[in-house]
């Protein structure tokens, strides 16, 4: 673990990424304290005002403060990122562990399910599922989680295939430990490194996906502000108010960039060999 911190602290880009990730998280949590205005308060006298001392990032079509909306939007975007990646990791770990440990029919069934899910372009699949559901923040989280677990399942399975042949596992089996206990207590802790990296890189992917859906008007619904929502409002008045379109996009870019830098830094610090298996193309949302 010490070697890990030493390697990570030498990677300046990863540290910058980590710092931005932390600042964003703090600002999102403290949004009610930090935000200069009420994000939902309409002010018809101040419609589409350009950035000024009063409204740092301007106002939107109904006079709401863009900065405050972006701060509250950070809450939703980050929450969607964390929760959906949590769901994806839980499913991926459970299925991947079962497939890798038991092998045979279980393995075959799980891996064919993974292949089946990977045939559908993710964005099309998301849209199709969302068409059947009532849109809310929770549906978005669940749906992004349910369509994003395949990578984790493959990683966990590969780790389990290698680890289950090791002496400490065979020893536990011979003294009669149950399969669940061996999976949970003995193998999983040793298989977590690539999963953690995949999760760190999965959060920006989920944020990109959510903002893309919200931009199309199919994600998180108003009155909740998210970065994608604000961009969706902005595209209607793009010729009048550039600030509605520029700033939320920059926020997404910086967030995703920081998470990617941090994730790649963690990966390199944990084990440079992981470069092969985790993370390439993990960061694109679809």
């Amino acid at each position, binding site marked *: 673990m010490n070697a890990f911190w030493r390697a990570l602290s030498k990677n300046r880009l990863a540290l910058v990424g980590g710092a931005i990730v932390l600042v964003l998280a703090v600002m999102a949590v403290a949004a009610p304290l930090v935000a200069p205005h009420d994000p939902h308060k309409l002010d018809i006298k101040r419609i589409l005002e350009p950035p000024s001392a009063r409204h740092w990032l301007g106002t939107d079509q109904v006079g709401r403060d863009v900065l405050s909306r972006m701060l509250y939007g950070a809450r939703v975007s980050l929450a969607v990122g964390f929760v959906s990646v949590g769901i994806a990791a839980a499913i991926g770990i459970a299925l991947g562990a079962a497939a890798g440990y038991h092998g045979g029919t279980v393995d075959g069934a799980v891996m064919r399910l993974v292949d089946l899910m990977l045939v*559908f372009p993710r964005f099309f699949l998301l849209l199709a599922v969302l*068409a059947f559901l009532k849109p809310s923040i929770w549906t978005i989280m669940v749906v992004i989680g349910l369509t994003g677990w395949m990578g984790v399942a493959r990683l966990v399975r590969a780790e389990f295939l290698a680890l289950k042949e090791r002496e400490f596992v065979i020893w536990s089996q011979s003294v009669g430990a149950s399969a669940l206990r061996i999976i949970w207590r003995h193998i999983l802790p040793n298989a977590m490194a690539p999963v953690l990296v995949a999760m760190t890189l999965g959060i920006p992917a989920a944020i990109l996906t959510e903002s893309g859906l919200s931009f199309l008007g199919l994600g998180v619904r108003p009155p909740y502000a998210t970065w994608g929502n604000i961009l969706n409002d902005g595209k209607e008045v*793009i010729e009048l108010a550039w600030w509605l379109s520029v700033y939320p996009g920059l926020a997404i870019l910086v967030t995703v960039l920081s998470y990617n830098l941090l994730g790649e830094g963690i990966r390199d610090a944990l084990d440079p060999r992981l470069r092969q298996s985790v993370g390439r193309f993990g960061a694109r949302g679809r």
Partner: protein
Amino acid sequence: MIRERLPITLALNVVEMLIIVAMAVPVGVTSATRQYSTFDKATTVFVFVGFATPDFWLAVMLQILFGVHLGWLPISGLRLPVWEYLPFWQQQWDFASHLLLPITVATFGGLAGFSRYMRQSMLEVIRQDYVQSARAKGLPESVVIGKHALRNAMLPIVTVLGLSVPGLIGGSVIVETIFAIPGMGQLMVQAVYERDYPVIMANLVIVASLTLVANLFADLSYSLIDPRIRVSRRGRR
């Protein structure tokens, strides 16, 4: 409905794929052979920024810049309403100018990913012994890199290319919606707005089949690049 739209999406994706490969391979090879040069560092920055840029935002920004402020390029549709009455060359130019922005947006992220992947793959290959021996027997550097190293470095790229097809097709949803291109992606979004379930399902089946076909092509092209891999007539193992 789908028959009109499928060729548009298909053609766009094939063009995008060709552009990505045509640009990412030289960029990746150059940054691998000149590791840590200014060029390499510049592409690394581009890769990280390209990865993090939301494509829909990039699309909107380009629309503002080239469509609204500069007025150089049209920002929606495939052709002008008066297209049929234009002379031949103007027709071609009109078509190309409509496609320039959408294709730029759609290739941006993929380009970043592939040039990075190409660099990584090339870096591994040029450290191998046979590259050294090719140099030792006096072959010019261009043959060593362009023939001996590149062929082997391309193998993992083909795998990734096949795997990235669903992503590229998924990207058409955003690009086609923003630029009002009448393709499958736009149809999908409209169908979701209207809750037109049969159209949604048909769309899903078709894009899934496209993915399968693309994967098949990726598998077949292995044998083109690496003569050691043969596609056998029967499923021998």
